[in-house]
């Protein structure tokens, strides 16, 4: 397809987005039904044009159309097809177009499935979505046009950065963007409510599925990014407190707070103002993340290109949306009626505590990420805020959240019985203590934080089990009844328990890997044998191989344990010929939940090869835990209560058709 078609479609998308911003909101102000009703059609048209534009760019990549500058700079005709496609968003322009596409899809989804939203709310929501669409399509067209031509067209492209030539590029950015941009919907809902000056429990029921969906995608996106960095960079680390990672963690923390406070609002009609503020903050932090990563103020592998006009443009977008929404919030928040009082010890109280600590953690990450930038801007002094800062602050704030997690769901709404909840958690607490004791015994000496972490993780997982068991009445009623009750529990209850268990599992992986991993750095020749965490590795042979666009040196290692062979592992060093750039492809082998990880270094003067090998106990639980958390989100999303709230246009807002067993 002709790249100009893509460019033209993007221009049309901008025009449509402008209409989408103005018409429905105007309609809502003047009570003009016809104007309000054009919103959905415009949102779908916007979605169509952006999708067409994106499809054109993908086609240019697949066909290696080197008359397009973006393709020249980031592709190569010898690149495998998958990486030609994923290379579309492996660069600044393409990834911003993907951002716009995800935004357009979400807007289209609101238009399609928002049939039973009140007309004014829907018009305002689509209007706000339209304004975000204007900002990003204008940004693309004015500063980051992916369809710029080169004349004459070169015969070959510069290839994609080899670090990005990986299946991870197909998964991580789309998931992350689904999360980031998903919060644009909750943001639009919040701003729409503020424009209208009205908000009620039904609002929370519409917002919660969007928040849950965005949160689930963001959880998966962050976990995937972490695993990708872990196996691709060859250092064996899975979280570096890199500013770019922090940029994704901040909206995650705010989003986690949001999905919890939305529950309070929906059930108890309390915390309204706070929930609106969180919805605004979650997306503001997503925008901030986009700004930090895309503007080039941060230096990292994610910053594809530096161009001051882009930074200024994104900053303007940031100021407009964050400043605008917060100003609107300040002006209107007072008029939102507060309802639902509760005692400090209650489900609401527990959720408030959760929210306080999560937002405090987000603030700590915010300060640590932006302080160096601010300091350099003001004094010129260059500093780094590293892992010790984040481990201390975020760790200290997340510890109480995690400990309180099993208590929350066991407390009743309005007025809870803390002693009763503690009593029901006795067994879980005791087993947690046992786990801590076993961990302390197993490691003999060492930091006390390790057994505490292991015990806490066990307590959280068992606490989630207790929660579900208590609701089903296991032990109190006959097994058959308990099973029936278990199945009859609202999906949201299963989802919450599952997500909480996921947190515990993730924590277990983090503590075990951090405390007990072992590292061997050694210079080895073929035939050399060395120990790594209970296993023995032998460098069996080194063989050169050739891939489609690289050459590599593969080290094959035999693994043995107690003299018996248990398999082999391949690790390689690749040289990508187009850019003359080497990469390390770590060799990883999983045993149970633990992994053996080997990466190759440089050749040494004596003829050997530098080798770095790790034993990473229970490391996979980190990502499995995250996946379970996201799965909990999916379960909650499938709750009947939320489905009744959302899709069918025919049924006009059945007021809270709650399942009988609702908590």
């Amino acid at each position, binding site marked *: 397809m002709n790249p100009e078609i893509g460019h033209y479609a993007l221009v049309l998308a901008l025009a449509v987005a402008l209409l989408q911003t103005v018409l429905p909101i105007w309609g809502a102000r003047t009570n003009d039904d016809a104007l309000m009703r054009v919103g959905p059609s415009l949102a779908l048209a916007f979605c169509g044009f952006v999708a067409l534009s994106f499809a054109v760019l993908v086609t240019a990549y697949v066909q290696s159309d080197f008359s397009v500058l973006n393709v020249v700079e980031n592709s190569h005709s010898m690149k495998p097809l998958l990486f030609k496609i994923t290379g579309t968003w492996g660069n600044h322009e393409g990834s911003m177009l993907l951002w716009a596409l995800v935004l357009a899809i979400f807007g289209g989804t609101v238009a399609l499935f928002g049939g039973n939203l009140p007309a004014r709310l829907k018009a305002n929501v689509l209007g706000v979505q339209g304004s975000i669409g204007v900002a990003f399509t204008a940004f693309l067209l004015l500063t980051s046009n992916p369809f710029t031509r080169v004349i004459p067209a070169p015969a070959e492209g510069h290839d994609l*950065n080899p670090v990005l030539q990986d299946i991870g590029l197909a998964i991580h950015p789309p998931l992350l963007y689904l999360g980031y941009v998903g919060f644009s919907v909750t943001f639009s809902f919040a701003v729409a409510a503020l424009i209208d000056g009205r908000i009620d429990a039904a609002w929370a029921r519409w917002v919660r599925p969007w928040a849950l969906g965005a949160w689930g995608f963001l959880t998966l996106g962050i976990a995937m990014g972490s695993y990708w960095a872990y196996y691709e960079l060859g250092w064996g680390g899975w979280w570096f407190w890199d500013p770019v990672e922090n940029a994704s963690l901040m909206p995650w923390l705010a989003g986690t707070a949001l999905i919890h406070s939305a529950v309070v609002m929906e059930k108890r009609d309390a915390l309204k103002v706070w929930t609106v503020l969180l919805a605004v903050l979650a997306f503001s932090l997503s925008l901030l993340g986009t700004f930090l990563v895309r503007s080039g103020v941060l230096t990292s592998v994610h910053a594809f290109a530096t161009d001051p006009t882009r930074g200024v443009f994104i900053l303007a977008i940031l100021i407009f949306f964050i400043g605008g929404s917060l100003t609107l919030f300040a002006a209107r928040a007072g008029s939102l009626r507060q309802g639902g009082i509760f*005692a*400090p010890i209650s489900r609401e109280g527990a959720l408030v505590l959760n929210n306080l600590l999560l937002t*405090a953690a987000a603030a700590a990450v915010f300060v*640590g990420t932006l302080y160096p930038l601010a300091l350099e801007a003001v004094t010129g002094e260059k500093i780094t805020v590293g892992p010790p*800062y984040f481990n201390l602050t975020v760790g200290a704030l997340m510890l109480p959240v995690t400990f309180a997690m099993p208590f929350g769901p066991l407390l009743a709404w309005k007025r809870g019985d803390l002693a009763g909840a503690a009593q029901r958690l006795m067994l879980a607490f005791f087993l947690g203590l046992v786990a801590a004791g076993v961990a302390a015994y197993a490691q003999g000496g060492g930091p006390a934080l390790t057994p505490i972490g292991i015990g806490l993780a066990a307590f959280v997982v068992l606490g989630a089990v207790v929660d579900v068991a208590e609701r089903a009445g296991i032990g109190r009623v006959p097994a058959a009844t308990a099973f029936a009750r278990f199945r009859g529990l609202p999906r949201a209850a299963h989802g919450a328990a599952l997500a909480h268990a996921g947190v515990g599992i993730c924590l277990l992986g983090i503590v075990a890997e951090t405390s007990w991993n072992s590292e061997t*750095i050694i210079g080895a020749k073929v035939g050399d044998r060395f120990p790594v965490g209970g296993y023995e590795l032998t460098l069996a042979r080194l063989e050169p191989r050739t891939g489609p666009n690289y050459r590599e040196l593969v080290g094959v290692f035999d693994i043995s344990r107690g003299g018996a062979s248990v398999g082999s592992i391949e690790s390689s060093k690749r040289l990508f010929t187009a850019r003359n750039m080497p990469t390390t492809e770590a060799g990883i082998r999983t045993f149970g939940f633990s992994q053996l990880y080997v990466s190759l270094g440089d050749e*040494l*003067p004596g003829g050997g090869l530098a080798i770095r090998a790790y034993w990473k106990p229970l490391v996979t639980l980190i990502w499995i835990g995250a996946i379970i958390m996201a799965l909990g989100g999916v379960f909650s999303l499938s709750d009947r209560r939320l489905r009744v709230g959302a899709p069918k246009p025919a049924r006009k807002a059945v007021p809270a058709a709650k399942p009988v067993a609702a908590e």
Partner: protein
Amino acid sequence: MTRKGRRLVLISSALGVLAIAAGLVLFALNDTIVFFRSPSEIATEHTAPGTRLRIGGLVKDGSVVKSDNVHVRFAITDGGAEVEVAYVGILPDLFREGQGVIAEGRLTGPMSFAADSVLAKHDEKYMPREVVDALKKQGVWQEGANGAPVKASQGSSVQ
């Protein structure tokens, strides 16, 4: 408890959490930030040995010495002064003589440094921003010379 009393509990616990968080942040910031210095700055400022720092510049040509296991020595220069760096571990893929690098670790003497992590570029186009600034100060940097201007990235041994 009255509505007012409840609100008081809520607000005071919120302020309590905020105060704790602010205290934590200030304490941790005070304790854990690492300053960036160029070799010339180290030469003129007489920073005390043992101070945790990040230093950046170019890997001096011909200075890299690898012993037969994984002990590496090299010099970082910004044209004005140079610092001897000792490092144990595997160097990043794009660590090369004459290229930009950042080392994090402690000063062991006036102009010697023990690094526990070494960051190099991720891509041949990139150069750590701090390094570019340091080189510009020394008048060594030529726009476009080391592969187009600037932008760094890490690649390292993070332990």
